[in-house]
């Protein structure tokens, strides 16, 4: 394989991992606060549609991304209201949210499936981007790619370097104790859920604005679920999300290239690879840690908080 192909593969892997990084880092913060939101897939698809529609009508990439963010938050706010105020079961509500998101996006998106938009272009920094190898590898991506990696850093910094982040982790660990000390459990959780929605929305928009310039109602293709798996894979550590996303992205790209190289395995089997790999990784991770108590998992994950008790 020549140099150019290797660079192309690496760039491909990075780009394939970005939507997962967005969705997973948002979900990671949500789960750290003790809430399990299984609606990631739904929030992503709504973000993908909102981004596509606004890009199509205004031509402004900035507005498109902003719209995706707000759409993700809007869907998340339904979840926040139901689970935090009305205290519904988080698993059921999250599943319903995914179904709702997929349904409403397919419905609104009917008129757009024939349309085309302009992809968000990659940045070009004079000199730096022109540098051989390093230039294309590090300095020639779409701005959202950098944003994704920056968000991981930001979430890590928030969780481990700020008092609010510490409080959020404490709430995820023991919401009754946090309440007893006087912290507002519900406010923290609602804000975390909204952040998770915003991230999932942008992650979805990355698919429709950067990866493929068309709208398709199944374009998230289970990435929301992979993102939830990645949070577990990362043991709730932000930087490990990148690792997991790159592995998944890598297998996705390799699978594409394998088809290009005329590997004699039918395409359907190759398309299964990333999902199969996710399962294998999750299981092997558990096997390895079987004997250790899993301290990273928030103790209150998915548990309902009654503020009166």
């Amino acid at each position: 394989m020549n140099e150019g192909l290797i660079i192309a593969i690496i760039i491909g892997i990075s780009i394939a991992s970005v939507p997962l990084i967005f969705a997973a880092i948002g979900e990671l913060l949500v789960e750290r606060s003790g809430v399990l939101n299984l609606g990631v897939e739904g929030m992503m698809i709504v973000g993908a549609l909102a981004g596509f529609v606004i890009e199509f009508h205004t031509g402004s990439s900035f507005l498109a991304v902003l719209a995706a963010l707000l759409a993700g938050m809007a869907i998340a706010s339904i979840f926040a209201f139901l689970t935090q105020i009305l205290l519904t079961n988080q698993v059921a509500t999250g599943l319903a949210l995914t179904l709702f998101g997929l349904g409403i996006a397919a419905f609104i998106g009917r008129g757009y499936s024939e349309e085309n938009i302009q992809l968000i272009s990659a940045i070009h920094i004079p000199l730096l981007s022109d540098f051989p190898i390093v230039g294309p590898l590090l300095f020639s991506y779409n701005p959202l790619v950098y944003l994704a990696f920056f968000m991981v850093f930001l979430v890590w910094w928030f969780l481990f370097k700020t008092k609010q982040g510490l409080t959020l982790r404490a709430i995820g660990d023991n919401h009754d104790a946090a309440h007893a000390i006087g912290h507002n459990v519900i406010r923290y959780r609602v804000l975390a859920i909204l952040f998770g929605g915003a991230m999932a929305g942008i992650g979805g928009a990355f698919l429709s604005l950067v990866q493929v310039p068309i709208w398709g109602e199944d374009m998230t293709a289970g990435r929301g679920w992979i993102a939830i798996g990645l949070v577990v894979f990362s043991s709730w550590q932000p930087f490990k999300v990148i690792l997991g996303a790159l592995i998944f992205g890598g297998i996705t790209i390799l699978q594409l290239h394998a088809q290009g190289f005329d590997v004699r395995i039918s395409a359907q089997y190759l398309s299964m690879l990333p999902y199969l790999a996710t399962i294998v990784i999750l299981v092997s991770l558990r096997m390895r840690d079987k004997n250790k108590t899993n301290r990273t998992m928030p103790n209150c994950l998915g548990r309902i908080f009654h503020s009166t008790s």
Partner: protein
Amino acid sequence: MKYQLEIQNITKSYGDLKANDDISLSIKPASIHALLGENGAGKSTLVKVIYGSLQADSGQMQWCGEGYSPKSPFEAREQGIAMVFQHFSLFESLTVAENIILGLDDIGLDTDFTEQIIKYSKQYGLDINPQQVVGDLSVGARQRVEIIRCLMQNPKLLIMDEPTSVLTPQEVTDLFITLRKLAEDGCAILYISHKLEEVRQLCSEATILRGGQLVQNCNPQDHNKQELAEMMIGKKLVQLARSNITTGQDIFSINNLSRKSEDMFGVDLHDISLTIKQGSIVGIAGVAGNGQDELMELLIGEVEAPADSLIFKGEDVGRLNPHQRRQLSMFFIPEERLGHGAVPDMGLHENMLLSRPQKSEMTNYGVINWQNVEKLTQQVIDDFKVQTQSSKMLAKSLSGGNLQKFMVGRELIQNPELLIVSQPTWGVDAGSENNIHQSLIALADQGSAILIISQDLDEILTLCEQVHVLSEGSLSAAVDMEDNGLEKISNLMVGSEKQ
């Protein structure tokens, strides 16, 4: 005279139950004031009202002579009120330092804090490592974290809910030095305890509650322990003593039991040996975190023991699971009530059923006979005076002492041939402690063997005729109590700490 805190005619009801009925008390500045009462007397409710977690239905409070009605713990803390909770309000996945920071409102993460914690912990003899994760700490160490968290707020009033129940005698002495020093520095202390001897040593005033009502405000030093206890429970206490001990054959032995702990903060057990005769009560004293948890896991069967290291009635039980051991009439009461001893979200009757051996009157070919379950649960509730509205109440809704009574009763009603119990009276008030001790003695008098692992030296000395000390994972030989026994035990207990 201006009081630090004055409480006038506070009433608080939960439905029909009056948890606090017209209670008044006054705390002088820089005094140590005891709040005495049995479980369910209304101490916790009163304290929550003071700390702002609950609002009273009627009545007023004055703080430094001014009206005071906190809506939240934040407001209480702003005024300078700090509290050590009975049910720990710690975050298990966070470190000691992080836990302490969370309780302090005006401190951010950037402040270098570790040194300050170490300074306080040395100053007050509260030994903790700020970087350790709380989930790995023993109950005793967790309480030390709570206490330090409060002390670092420089409070004007410190509320302490049963602070000494898990401390060693030396630690209690150290804590009292701390508290007296704090009081000298101008901090009033509201000291909730059922250990009357301590209250008499430490406190100059006492408020006694019973059944939600005020019994008396008095000076505890004017009364002896018996009088205080009787005021508290409203009846006479039974004097405890094992009169004629008749021991039979060896029933249970631990032979050269060693265990390497998988947990990095765990304690390895070295070569532990012990023999228990029928009808005897054997005690294992020692400071928490010296291998008690690790030993208990092996005894219960949560972790398998090596071959021939645990022999019960001549049978090697080391590889049996807890349920199989119960079938052989070995019963257990673990230290951690919620989660280990009982399922918090299940009713008492369901918890009753869960620890049953297979062949019992509660099931019929695997089908539950709820009538019998109910009947037996009710019997435990009645016999052990568990205060609960019904046998279906969730385990977690009971106070610690009440749940402990239930769990002791649940095992005793089976007439175990061997009972292994860890911290039988932790957080339990005087009246209930008396009850639990009486029932343990009665069980031994019937010929059953009992092994007690406890940090409460008084308890061990009252009940046990054979005492061992667990220190850094090693068990001492039985201590000869005839000749300076207490001193020997104390030396064995602290010996490890000085190394």
